[in-house]
């Protein structure tokens, strides 16, 4: 029982950055733009959160700073792919390399370290209710905020004017265009909002450790991408996939300390293998995209 509680608490904490990045990815890709740069947005979000909190002494401003950095990187990506019509994959790969290089560079420039920033205590965020592990995890402001954002993003996509236009633009930009809806503008907003979300996810990573570590996103952006595909570009299934992948990771940590059925590397592999299996099994549906059903029809196509 105690083990289970600890496990669920770990699962929740681990899943937060996945969920935020996956929400950002869903937002972006639903509008028809491939978003493989989530990894980079997590990274700049984490770095910016540390610097912002360090500079202002405020954890809140740290988180805001992280989100803004993610949004800014997404803005750069959006301007390049939407207005200069570059290849979205090439640009996404480059944005990830850029984020990696830039955070390492700035880490050295600002903190004179190749590996990590000093601990920034200002970035400490405390649970609203003190108590057991699980209670603290569930009342952590960022966890609560993430749960709220899941609802909010689902609601925006489903019910708002912006969400309707976003979905339309992702499926059939020409149809939107003939009705006076500018696909570029919609996509720009979708990408930037997606960047803000992923940036917040990075800020959470930094807040967990109260410092920035080189390359600390460690593939989480890609796992979030996998979760989004796993969830077939729908918010709640994507979040569920994040929890699943988070559970695998929590399990791995537990096993490392106690030894278990699967070695760590096998658990690490799990999200990726599962995604491959889903893509392989989904097969040639009516609608293509990344493969598998439900991909936005216009995904990846330049305007």
């Amino acid at each position, binding site marked *: 029982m105690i083990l289970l509680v600890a496990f669920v608490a770990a699962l929740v904490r681990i899943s937060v950055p996945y969920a935020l990045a996956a929400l950002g990815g869903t937002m972006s890709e639903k509008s028809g733009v491939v978003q493989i740069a989530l990894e980079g947005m997590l990274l700049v979000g984490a770095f910016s959160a540390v610097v912002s909190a360090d500079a202002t002494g405020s954890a809140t401003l740290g988180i805001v700073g992280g989100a803004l950095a993610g949004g800014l990187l997404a803005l750069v990506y959006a301007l390049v792919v939407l207005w200069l019509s570059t290849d979205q994959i090439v640009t996404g790969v480059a944005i990830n390399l850029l984020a990696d290089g830039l955070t390492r560079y700035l880490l050295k420039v600002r903190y004179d370290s190749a590996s990590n920033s000093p601990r920034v205590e200002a970035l400490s965020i405390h649970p609203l209710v003190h108590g057991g592990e699980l209670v603290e995890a569930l009342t952590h402001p960022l966890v609560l905020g993430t749960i709220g954002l899941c609802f909010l993003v689902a609601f925006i996509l489903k019910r708002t*004017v912006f969400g*309707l236009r976003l979905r339309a633009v992702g499926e059939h930009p020409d149809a939107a265009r003939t009705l*006076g809806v500018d696909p570029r503008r919609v996509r720009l907003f979708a990408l930037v909002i997606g960047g803000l979300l992923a940036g917040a996810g990075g800020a959470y990573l930094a807040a967990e450790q109260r410092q920035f570590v080189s390359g600390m996103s460690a593939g989480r952006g890609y796992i979030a991408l996998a979760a989004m595909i796993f969830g077939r570009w729908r918010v709640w299934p994507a979040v569920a996939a994040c929890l699943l992948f988070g559970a695998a990771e929590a399990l791995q940590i537990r096993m490392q300390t106690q030894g278990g059925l699967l070695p760590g590397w096998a658990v690490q592999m799990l999200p990726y293998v599962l995604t491959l299996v889903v893509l392989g099994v989904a097969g040639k549906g009516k609608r293509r995209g990344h493969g598998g059903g439900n991909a936005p029809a216009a995904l990846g196509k330049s305007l």
Partner: protein
Amino acid sequence: MTEALGCEHVSKRYGETVANRDVSISVKKGSAHALVGENGAGKSTLMRILYGLERADEGQVRVGGEVVRPSVELSLERGVGMVHQHFMLVPTLTVAENVVLGREPRRGPLVDLKRAERELAAVAERYKLSVDPKRLVGDLSVGEAQRVEILKVLYRGARTLILDEPTAMLTPPEVDQLIAMLRGLVAGGDTVLIVTHKLGEVLALADEITVLRRGEVVDRRSTDGLSAASLGQALVGRSLPALPKRTRAIEAGERLRLADVAIDREDGTRALDGLSLTVAPGEILGVAGVEGNGQRELAAVAAGLLRPARGSVHMGGRDATRLDVAERHALGLGFVPEDRHEEGLLLDAPLWESYYLGREAAYGSSMVIPQALVVEDAAKKMATFDVRPADPWAHARGLSGGNQQKVLLLRELARRPTTLVCAQPTRGVDIGAIAEIHASLLALADEGAGILLVSAELDEIFAIADRVVVLYRGKLVLEQALGAGDDRDALRARIGGAMLGVAHT
């Protein structure tokens, strides 16, 4: 009467091709105006310019008599709506969501779907265009989707409707309904500008017509006292040059036989439904029908691009049902696909590569391309077929439609086919090239090949086919031998009726 929509001296080029040259039209308020012309005459481009989706290179556009800088936003604002040839609908959204997109009734930042559905129902009621606002557009039939397209325009309060070939995919009762509805709109003072190449629709609906041919206005007149025959002449504007006489009779036997073939489309609807037909040696079998009635799938299943869900395909006396295109080549197949850009030619490669593609074995067994040999052969063939330029190193993209089609045909003829599956061989091709292409098809038949000719142009079928079958909703509804002594007008009426699913006894 005042003008609803018009343009003056509009020209538009795409690279080397001229889509519109010095076009002027004027559509009177409260009238129905038809813009007619063959495929590739520049009708769609003109519509897109008028609606503001494309910008003209030269000339000006008028809305409500006032010269404007056309844009989609302006059109929407001035009550001009457009129904596109290819549906501009989002399949994953509901009918109501599609209709209100871009002009959503709001409650704060939210879409007021209740109100949207209510408003839509009111519009639908007024124009007798019933459709369930809650259904997903992806689940609708073609006719229903068309209705949603029109509702979209009407919902925006458009008083001027531009319709680009709205009937191409509709069934005859749906066409009648649409025409009646449009007539109702015009009677109520609205304006309709319709693009079509179907003469019956023009006569049933339009007050005035403008005829476009190769991007230019060649005729404009009132439809009063106009007959289908005189309109047809205005539309085509030419009679095909005399073709060589056939030298050899059709023989007994079969080159191609389809038995009880059924094909399902990706969306689950039936494209071909128990179709059987035979093409004899030396015979040209024409396949006529309104687009979307299974012609595309017929050509694909005959060539081996599609496997039938049921039934069998025989080629050269052998069962070819499970063979792919390459394996059917060995049984004598030649295949001229319908869309030479999408399926026929390598557009950005030298012509000799397109000529060589899939025929590698004809030049020996070496795995290295015998380039000099192929280029020389291509040059020779291109010169004899008068391809311009007859340069094997030229890229296909830069050639005119007729010359592209000739290169494609050259490749397939070079296979020395005994069965040729040939779809729309002269679509968008100039007159001179049409005659040459027809002559070469006749010559091939005279050598004993069987030709399956799928064509949207009845005149083409009359000109070279020995027999015609009509496809309607995936079924053969009429079969008719063709001969020199036929009464063409009567035949045309009969075939035209069959194409629309009207049973003749």
